[in-house]
């Protein structure tokens, strides 16, 4: 650092001052972003390279690391029933989760986007669940979803519905998790709200003059304006939903996968392979497949974007 400082203050050189300044700037720039570069290489790039190589081995940390070609990948699709189960569960969850949370976020944002008294209080309430996370939230929902003493089935019983067993019935475990996810949809809501609040009021007013009702305004003004955010939200929540793990781990007693493996998600299976069976090679191959899936989906999203995203 001292050396750099010194060059900065050297007055006499043969090169034009401009070039030296530029070079100096570049060095400063690299210094500032160096933590990212180091972190990227150390915690991301090299691990990923290792993971890639490891995917083709039977690495188990303690005794072996033999190259076995595509055997891990072959096993996934031909020999590991649970892999297919976990993939199915995850895709099922993503397909249910992404549209519902996106719609939920937009709905709350539209509801909040008006200039009426006390709206900030509602905004606070809507957003509060989104900042709560972790084991405490899962434990709370285990109680809410409890078949006989939980809040949800209690409320359902008031209107004469016998609620399902939620986390104990393989048909209802995934919807139960979606319900929990919907509770904290306020994060996405704020993204939408920020954009909506920048929409000039005249747009709506002139639409009203043209006789547009609330639904036409929503369909033709509001939604097109927030499509870029929907796009961002869909991409990130797809990636997020594919990584579902903690909920299933905490809510099914040490990651056993719940009734009839209905909560055995992709990452839970990978976790069990890696840290219970210590089949690291196989688990790394699974992570590679997950990465490929995410890339392909993001790519598809990007390709489809021009059809519906209005910039």
């Amino acid at each position, binding site marked *: 650092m001292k050396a750099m400082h010194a060059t900065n203050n050297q007055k006499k050189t043969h090169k034009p001052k401009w070039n030296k300044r530029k070079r100096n700037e570049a060095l400063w720039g690299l210094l500032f972003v160096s933590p990212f570069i180091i972190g990227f290489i150390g915690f991301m790039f090299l691990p990923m390279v290792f993971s890639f190589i490891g995917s083709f081995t039977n690495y188990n940390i303690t005794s072996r690391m033999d190259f076995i070609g595509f055997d891990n990948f072959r096993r996934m699709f031909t020999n590991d029933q649970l892999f297919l189960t976990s993939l199915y569960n995850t895709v099922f969850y993503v397909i249910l989760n992404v549209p519902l949370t996106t719609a939920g976020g937009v709905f709350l944002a539209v509801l909040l986007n008006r200039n009426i*008294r006390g709206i900030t209080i509602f905004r606070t309430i809507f957003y509060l669940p989104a900042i709560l996370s972790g084991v*405490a939230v899962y434990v709370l929902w285990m109680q809410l979803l409890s078949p006989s003493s939980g809040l949800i089935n209690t409320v359902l019983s008031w209107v004469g519905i016998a609620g399902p067993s939620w986390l104990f019935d393989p048909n209802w475990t995934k919807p139960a998790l979606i319900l929990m996810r919907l509770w904290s949809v306020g994060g996405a809501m704020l*993204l939408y709200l920020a954009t909506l609040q920048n929409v000039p009021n005249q747009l709506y007013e002139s639409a009203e003059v043209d006789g547009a009702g609330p639904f036409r305004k929503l369909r033709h003004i509001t939604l097109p304006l927030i499509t870029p955010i929907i796009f961002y939200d869909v991409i990130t929540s797809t990636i997020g939903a594919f990584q579902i793990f903690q909920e299933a781990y905490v809510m099914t007693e040490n990651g056993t996968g719940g009734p009839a493996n209905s909560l055995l998600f992709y990452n839970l299976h990978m976790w069990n392979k890696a840290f219970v069976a210590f089949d690291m090679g196989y688990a790394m191959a699974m992570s590679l497949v997950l990465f490929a899936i995410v890339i392909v989906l993001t790519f598809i999203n990007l390709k489809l974007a021009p059809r519906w995203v209005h910039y």
Partner: protein
Amino acid sequence: MIESSETKYVEDDASSASKAQSKYFKSKKRQERTGKILIYLLLVVVSLVLLAPLVWMLSTSLKPMAEIVRFPPTILPETFVWQNYMDTIQAFPFFKYMGNTLFITAFVVLGNVFSNSFIAYGFAKIDFPGKKILFALVLATMMVPGFVTMIPQYILFTRINWVGTYLPLIVPAFFGSAFNIFLLRQFYMSINNELIEAAQIDGANHLYIWSRLMVPLTKPALITVGIMSFNGAWNDFLGPLLYITKEEMYTLQIGLQSFSNQSTTQWNYLMAGATLVLIPSILLFFFAQKYFIEGMDLTGGTKG
């Protein structure tokens, strides 16, 4: 934001009142009023639905077990059993785990605030070759699922003997994270370059400009990053689950999880435990709401 919206509200009212003679506007006003009532009704219903879980948690945490299993359940406790909280605190070393969690959290917050503002300044205010590509790389890392690097990272930390220490939870925070870099870069971009140029003419270098000029100017943004890091570290479960090996080093999340495994369906204690763990996040939210909301506003860097 409150002020601006309310003045608008008043203006709207006044302007429409002045035009109230016209029948068209009269009926429209009535329509607006019913519309407004409907909106309020909807807002209240949604709020109730979203708040119900937390109220229920609090209420259950104060009930005796016999009241919880009774059918139909009571909404509010008939008898308040504050002892539930005492029992829960004694059932697992709550304060010890809280201390451990605070220790980790403090370092993570420090690391995140420091490294991200440092890195973001580099991306926002200094020109160097390859910057665009490097920044694209920052954004690209947001798309990499955490589980992809989790296993090799674990192997790495195993090899360098960091498993069983807090290092794997703390050290990565000192190397920046994509979302925070992005957020802070937005803030730095909104700051006028003239200030920097003036300082440079005075002979100030970038380290000086960053620490003396930029950090004070971007305080709100840094607080946002700090608060989000606090929340992230406080609620982190996966990291401690993988890397902490000794009971006395547990965090609250791990403690609560093992407590929940031990006390299945003892909802009074479990809800008391959940409440205790959530309280810091809830308090922080109410005191620093503004910063949470700014953190989510990707487009609004300029507002800071």
